[in-house]
């Protein structure tokens, strides 16, 4: 009998395998998911009172299967299916179940918000209320999103099946990354739940990595999450304001997480075909390995952004590459680069373009123009903490205000 405090974690750990086992046996995701939720609810009520059973997962599978059978019976009573059902062997847990479940939750027929929500529910084992708190949505909306997603999976006839070796994981990795970034801050109103999303994303990615240790992009994503999350406590200060990377107190970074992330990405880069998540993790690793901002290996970062740009070009990668360029070749060269890409429709109204231009102008000593661009960036951003940060950068460029640290990197 385990300690009761660990119960939510235990249930969450069991949930996806239980669901996968029941779905594999009975086929229909929608009804099985309901049955598993009822089993989890029963466990949450009974276990604190009666103790955790010796084989919790087995207990949950049994209760969920029984519930599913009851549902099946009431549906098909007249068709006399009970006998067949009663003599079916109990579903067993299989290794690849969780992966199959992830792929089902990230089914291409679902919208991305639906994929995220369903993954948190079915694979993450979070309740509707927990998801609602974490995503800052009404519970009814989350409930509706889940039931609609399940219905859609049923309608498209998607089946729970073992993924073929090398099946594309792009959608799964994208969803896990979104869950991570959704939680990647300590600045929103409901800090605890946000951090929980980050932990959940890391936990799920870690499981996936354990299942597919040779997949370079899974390893890259896990490393990226660890290396980014390692800076969490240094990223914000009192009042939730953001601290840019160059000004963070690096002693507050999580050294074990950095060591783990570096080990994972180093191994992946040496053994797997290169991919975008691995390159992003490598960039994060270069930052994390600099004990002081001045020691950052910018030529290396510029090189990695160049590779990332060649492999998976995007406006944001282009912007980050320009920031690295400025650190290597100076702000004037980088400003010329920026002028060349700023006309891209995806960048023209994006706050990040103005923020990078402001940063480069500040480095070049053009204080008035820099202040204007920081203000423009503050107006265009949709992130509250970022808005405050950009306004504060503009404020310290007011005429007459001199700060010796002017010109530092503003990446966070």
């Amino acid at each position, binding site marked *: 009998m385990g300690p009761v405090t660990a119960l939510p974690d235990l249930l969450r750990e069991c949930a996806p395998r239980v669901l996968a086992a029941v779905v594999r046996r009975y086929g229909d995701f929608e009804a099985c998911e309901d049955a598993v939720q009822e089993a989890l609810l029963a466990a949450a009520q009974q276990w604190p009172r009666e103790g955790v059973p010796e084989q919790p997962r087995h207990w949950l599978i049994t209760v969920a299967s029984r519930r599913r059978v009851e549902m099946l019976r009431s549906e098909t009573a007249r068709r006399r299916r009970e006998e067949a059902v009663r003599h079916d062997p109990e579903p067993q847990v299989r290794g690849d179940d969780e992966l199959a479940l992830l792929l089902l939750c990230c089914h291409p027929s679902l919208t991305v918000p639906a994929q995220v929500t369903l993954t948190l529910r079915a694979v993450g084992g979070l309740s509707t209320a927990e998801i609602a708190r974490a995503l800052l949505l009404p519970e009814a*909306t989350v409930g509706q999103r889940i039931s609609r997603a399940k219905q859609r999976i049923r309608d498209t006839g998607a089946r729970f099946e073992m993924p073929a070796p090398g099946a594309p994981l792009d959608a799964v990795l994208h969803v896990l990354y979104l869950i991570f970034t959704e939680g990647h801050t300590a600045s929103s109103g409901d800090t605890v739940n946000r951090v929980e999303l980050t932990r959940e994303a890391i936990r799920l990615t870690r499981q996936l990595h354990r299942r597919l240790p040779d997949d370079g992009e899974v390893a890259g994503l896990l490393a990226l999450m660890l290396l980014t999350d390692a800076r969490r406590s240094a990223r914000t200060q009192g009042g939730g304001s953001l601290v840019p990377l160059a000004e963070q107190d690096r002693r507050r970074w999580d050294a074990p997480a950095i060591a783990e992330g570096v080990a994972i990405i180093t191994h992946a880069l040496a053994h797997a075909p290169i991919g975008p998540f691995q390159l992003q993790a490598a960039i994060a690793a270069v930052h994390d390995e600099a004990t002081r901002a001045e020691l950052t290996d910018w030529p290396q970062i510029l090189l990695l952004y160049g590779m990332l740009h060649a492999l998976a070009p995007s406006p944001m990668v282009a912007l980050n590459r320009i920031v690295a360029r400025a650190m290597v070749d100076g702000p004037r060269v980088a400003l010329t680069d920026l002028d060349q890409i700023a006309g891209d429709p995806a960048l023209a109204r994006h706050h990040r373009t103005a923020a990078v231009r402001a940063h480069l102008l500040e480095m070049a000593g053009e204080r008035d123009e820099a202040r204007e661009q920081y203000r423009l960036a503050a107006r265009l951003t949709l992130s509250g903490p970022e808005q405050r940060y950009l306004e504060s950068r503009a404020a310290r460029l007011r005429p007459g205000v001199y700060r010796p640290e002017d010109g530092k990197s503003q990446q966070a």
Partner: protein
Amino acid sequence: MKYVILIQSNPQSLAVWETLSEQQRTDFGLGHLRLTDQMRDAGVLVASEGLGDPALATQVSVRDGKTITSDGPFAEVKEHLAGFYLIDVADLGEAVAWAARTPDAGYTRVEVRPVLDMSEWDL
């Protein structure tokens, strides 16, 4: 991404309203109720309300720790907020698609604005 669909009342929209038949006005109202249901069913609705007349507004301010109230709208403006939908969708394109289904969009126009997110931060 959360977006708010803002529905303004202004001289243009009031003029259009004057031209509508009883049946058209009923359809207009039912259209909003149906849209709310559709948003809820799709799992995108965060909140949606129509607002009371600005004549029913109360202005609130605090000075020296005292709450001071006065009745009526903030100023004699020609335009005021009549209602809103707050939705959570994947992107602007989806938000615009929902906005296009408001009855107002067919007669006048509605505005889609992104909501500030207190959590996002570029890596």
